[in-house]
């Protein structure tokens, strides 16, 4: 019976249907199925299927994003049960994500967030126009493994460097990896500010994050 349910779960992610994925998550709880098993044998299978199809050019961003949203909704629905059982989904790492101060570009940053969290990272998306001090405070608060910063303007890129400088000053730089992205971000810039990684797109960002975590 669970096999049938897991298959439906995967399909709900492929269909990008949050209503169905939440409904199936609730069914799993009612049937006393381990939520971790529901995630790994059900929903994640769907995420991987869409991810692969996207990589092959057979799926498109709206499908990928909606799959990510359906996944997020399902996991949220399973969280109370996980808490009750005292179990936790094993995450790949904690990422603090933001578009830097003065910059309100959201699309690329949010895509990276969706992809990272669908791939198993715990993402703290702070939104856009986030001051350096706030980013640093969040890094400390959640004990982040990675800071990922987006900047789409040549005028705001410099804030990426500012965050790195402050991390350095506060003695956090060795502990926290830094990823940067955004249209004006070049390899040259990445080297100049001594960031650890950058990617041209959201799927690439997942690979970079995994590399930085040694996965």
């Amino acid at each position: 019976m669970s096999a049938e349910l897991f298959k439906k779960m995967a399909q709900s992610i492929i269909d990008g249907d949050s209503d169905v994925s939440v409904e199936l998550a609730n069914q799993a709880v009612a049937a006393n199925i381990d939520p971790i098993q529901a995630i790994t044998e059900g929903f994640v299978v769907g995420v991987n299927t869409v991810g692969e199809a996207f990589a092959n050019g057979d799926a498109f961003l709206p499908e990928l994003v909606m799959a990510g949203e359906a996944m997020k909704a399902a996991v949220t629905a399973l969280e109370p049960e996980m808490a009750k059982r005292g179990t936790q989904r094993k995450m790949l790492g904690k990422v603090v994500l933001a578009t830097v101060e003065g910059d309100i570009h959201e699309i690329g940053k949010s895509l990276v967030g969706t992809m990272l969290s669908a791939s198993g990272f715990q993402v703290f998306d702070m939104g856009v126009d986030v001051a350096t001090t706030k980013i640093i405070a969040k890094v400390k608060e959640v004990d982040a493994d990675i800071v990922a910063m987006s900047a789409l303007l040549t005028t705001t890129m410099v804030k990426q460097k500012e965050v790195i400088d402050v991390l350095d000053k506060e003695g956090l730089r060795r502990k926290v990896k830094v990823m940067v992205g955004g249209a004006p971000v070049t390899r040259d810039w990445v080297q100049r500010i001594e960031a650890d990684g950058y990617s041209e797109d959201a799927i690439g960002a997942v690979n970079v994050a995994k590399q930085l975590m040694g996965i």
Partner: protein
Amino acid sequence: MQPKLELLSQVLIDRVLDEAFQLMLKPGIKVQSGEARTLLAEAGALVDANSDVVRIPEMVVRKALETTPHTFNLYDRNGNPTVFYGGDAVHFDPGSSGVHVLDPDTLEHKPSYAADLMRLVKVTEMLPQYDAQSTAVVCNEIPKAVGDLYRLYVVLLFSSKPIITGSFSIQTLQSMIDMLGIFAGSSSALAEKPQAVFDVCPSPPLIWSEFGSQNLIDLARAGVPAQMVSMPLAGAAAPVTLLGSVTQHAAECLSGITIHQLAKAGSPIVWGGAPAIFDMRKGTTPMGAIETAMIDASYAQVGKSLGLPTHTYLCASDSKLVDAQAGMESGISAVIGALAGINMISGAGMLDFLACQSAEKLVVDAEGIGMAKRLLAGMQVQTENLATALFEGINFKGDFLKQKITRELFAKEQYLPSAVIDRDSIRGWQAGGSKDTFARAKDRTTQLLKEYQQPAMAEDQKKELQTMVTKLARDAGMDRLPDL
């Protein structure tokens, strides 16, 4: 008769405007400048103090539209009006603010420096197809705080054409206006005969940032033309439908015009943009997509229905090389922009989603622009009768080459391309080294740079400009300007 492309019926234009006015009430426009919100509130808009959202009634916008000039000129440094914003006049300029240049030898996309900008400006100066210059790339060695005004400085040094530019901050705008004022005589003289138009960008969807709104206000008060560059990204930062994006564009521009005219009624402002569709495979914003050009032609039609001057971003490509895709996308979109009668079409020279400029591509694009402009000139009646008189003495022989009228009219009837366009025989082409378009463009670029002569500039003006920019650069922590 200038040929025209119109994608919207009058009924659709009315629907776009009607829904744009609805959007300005619900959800409203987010205006992040306190001064702009005050101006709007005083004019009768409703401001939500907690969210910075302003609901702007149609009446307030209509009043602003009444005072917006329908035409204005841009002047070259010698005070000649060479660019006309208004009606169906069409002009082209290179795309702005690239961060890379294409190295013509290694084909690498390299970060751009002051010397690269100078090279682009010189090539643009030599090509009559470009009616205006742009501050085409950022200069990587220049501190960000003065990057915008330094670009303008390079253009002023090496060109006398009108300029499409823009500031990177609220503070530097005034310095840039002062720089232009040196040549106009004063800032009020600059308002009389502007040499530059300043791009100002709303942030999709439906947001005027503090920087954007403040630039609108400051430009209006200075009387220097503002050019709104609204960029709905269909399917990401705008509705996925092309018409939904055109409607969002209208709401962003109408609210911009309202802020601008409230700051100073009668100042010139352009209905412009750089929209794109969103590529659903790569998450990129293709400027060479046909749908991007369709959004542009349509929003221009909406702007024209209000009698406004227009601008857009076309003649660019997403290819990484100056190759077949680059030629196809730039050529097709240049023709669409021209047929749409858009007053200023920025984008030539650009590759890679407006990130990379190429002087060699500017040279190729100039030919596409030449052809587009020829198309606009249309079918002309050059002779009293169309053919009959020309047949006198012909007697079934192909002797038209011998006619005086042929010699007189061929250069009027035909656009005469440079050697970048290959119309040689196969043997002639082989004898010339069997070169492809890019190789021919490289040759021509080298030739143009060799022939280039710096336009004269009065010594005292040059000195004043250099002193001003050197001081501003020093304040930003740069001891001396790069040698050019």
